[in-house]
């Protein structure tokens, strides 16, 4: 059993390579989990980083890793049988609400990873209609292209698959279509992706009066709301989030503006992103 205390060393049961950039590591271990929560993943001698759980079953979990920096490149090079440490789950996860009839799920790039278990949780009898809007730089960055039965709109920055443009264009289009057809609109919009994308989703939702939830990323250390590394305005991302709803987003002055470097220095988000992507 994986808990929030000492990391549990778990064996990689299977590795699924999605593309040159993405791989999912699966573990046969149980964890109490709700979509949107994350775990701290430790590779001894390397580092420990937060990852969302992208696949979850009673005795199985998976994390999807984008090979980008030192840690993530090491993670995707691991093979079945190798062991890594996991502690968690941490954070609040998505609020799935009660009685939603129609929801939109908007994913940008690896932002699909935390949203995937949410989509699956909604894909049940009596579940809401799900409008999935998934975007990425190009075709090979689209995560889990065949995983869902939901209505999906695909877009890429370079047009290599689906609509050439942004997920936010499609979101507006879908909201307008429902409105024009006098159909009930979205009860909730869930989003994860680059922060600028989530800020745009929030702005769109505010202008149409639709509540939304977005999942933020910050540099983290403890994972449970003590060390202050991931503070965003008055919010502690690992503990109060990483999922934040519209009401909270309205009060978070650092949302889409500032983030803390490892030194604790607040910097503009683009400067932070440059550091994180090293």
């Amino acid at each position: 059993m994986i808990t929030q205390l000492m990391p549990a060393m778990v064996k990689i049961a299977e590795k699924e390579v999605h593309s040159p950039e993405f791989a999912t590591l699966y573990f046969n271990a149980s964890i109490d989990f709700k979509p949107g929560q994350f775990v701290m993943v430790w590779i001894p001698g390397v580092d420990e980083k937060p990852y969302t759980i992208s696949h979850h079953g009673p005795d199985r979990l998976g994390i999807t890793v984008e090979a980008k920096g030192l840690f993530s490149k090491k993670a995707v090079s691991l093979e079945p049988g190798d062991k890594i440490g996991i502690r968690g789950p941490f954070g609040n996860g998505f609020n799935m609400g009660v009685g939603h009839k129609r929801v939109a799920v908007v994913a940008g790039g690896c932002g699909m990873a935390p949203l995937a278990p949410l989509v699956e949780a909604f894909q049940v009898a009596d579940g809401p209609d799900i409008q999935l809007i998934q975007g990425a730089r190009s075709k090979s960055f689209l995560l889990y292209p065949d995983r869902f039965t939901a209505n999906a709109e695909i877009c890429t920055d370079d047009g290599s698959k689906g609509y050439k443009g942004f997920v936010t264009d499609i979101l507006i289009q879908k909201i307008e279509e429902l409105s024009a057809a006098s159909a009930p609109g979205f009860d909730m919009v869930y989003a994860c992706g680059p922060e600028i994308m989530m800020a745009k989703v929030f702005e769109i939702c505010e202008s149409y009066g639709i509540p939304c939830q977005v999942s933020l990323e910050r540099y983290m250390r403890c994972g449970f709301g003590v060390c202050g590394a991931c503070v965003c305005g008055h919010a502690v991302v690992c503990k109060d989030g990483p999922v934040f709803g519209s009401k909270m987003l309205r009060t978070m002055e650092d949302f889409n503006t500032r983030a803390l470097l490892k030194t604790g220095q607040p910097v503009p988000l683009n400067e932070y992103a440059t550091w994180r992507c090293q």
Partner: protein
Amino acid sequence: MQISFLGKTLHTPMVLASGVLGNNKAILERVWENGCGLPTMKSIGPAPREGHKNPTVIDLGNGMINAVGLPSPGYLNMDEEWQELSNRGFPVNASIYGGSVDEFVRVAEFVSAKGPDFIELNISCPNSDQHGMIFGVNAKSSHDVVSAVKKVIDVPLIAKLTPAAPNIADIAKACEDAGADAICAINTAGPGMVIDIESRQPVLAFKKGGLSGPMIKPVAVRCVYDIFRAVSIPIIGLGGISTGEDAIEIIMAGATLVGIGTAVRYRGITVFDKVNKEIDQWLAAHDTTMEEIRGAAHKEAL
């Protein structure tokens, strides 16, 4: 419950321990609004410092082990924070550290001019081999740092001490003699180590780390007890305080204010309000006051 401390009125006797939750105005204000009378900033250092690689903080269930490693933007790179804090409506305790007396003095002089209500000298952090605890385990070096810093600041000085000192009462007395206005005790204990037996590796990247939370409370209570007998300046007591009864205990050992750090993990940011209410309830139920119980554990012996 309002309390007067070194000439300032605090809305509660609760203090946020340094290193917890951070430096920006919005989070410190939130802590204050949730019942913390005196939020302490994360220690400010002489140069930009990233701290250690992860894992840096592990919850052991009855407390934490951490070696975050004194991350700091560096005192010259905090204009934004000070700008925001300049129009605050709450008191702030600025913790600082250095690797030499000169560095402490340089940081202290600069930070003092930014208008914190207090300056706390971190001569007690176990998570760097060049800073913190190396000063606080020795009475002479503690005296040297405090007296040098005292000359260049115009706000009250609080010395934060380590339980790793062979005799913490001697250190406290040396700080008082050097001009410290208050003592804050204790910083994390140990340092300790946890080894993952599967990978056969220490879990913390820095290998060792300071212990905090309920597991160290008896150490904190003993330290405050010893310090209270040695000095006449007020004491901020902390180390494993999670409930009103814990707070009462450390006040009976001699604390004037009570710090909270790790309990934020176990009871959330509202822990300050909760503990404050629990103190009030205990005092009411026992028909007594803070003044009456402060140092009460010494009465028989005195």
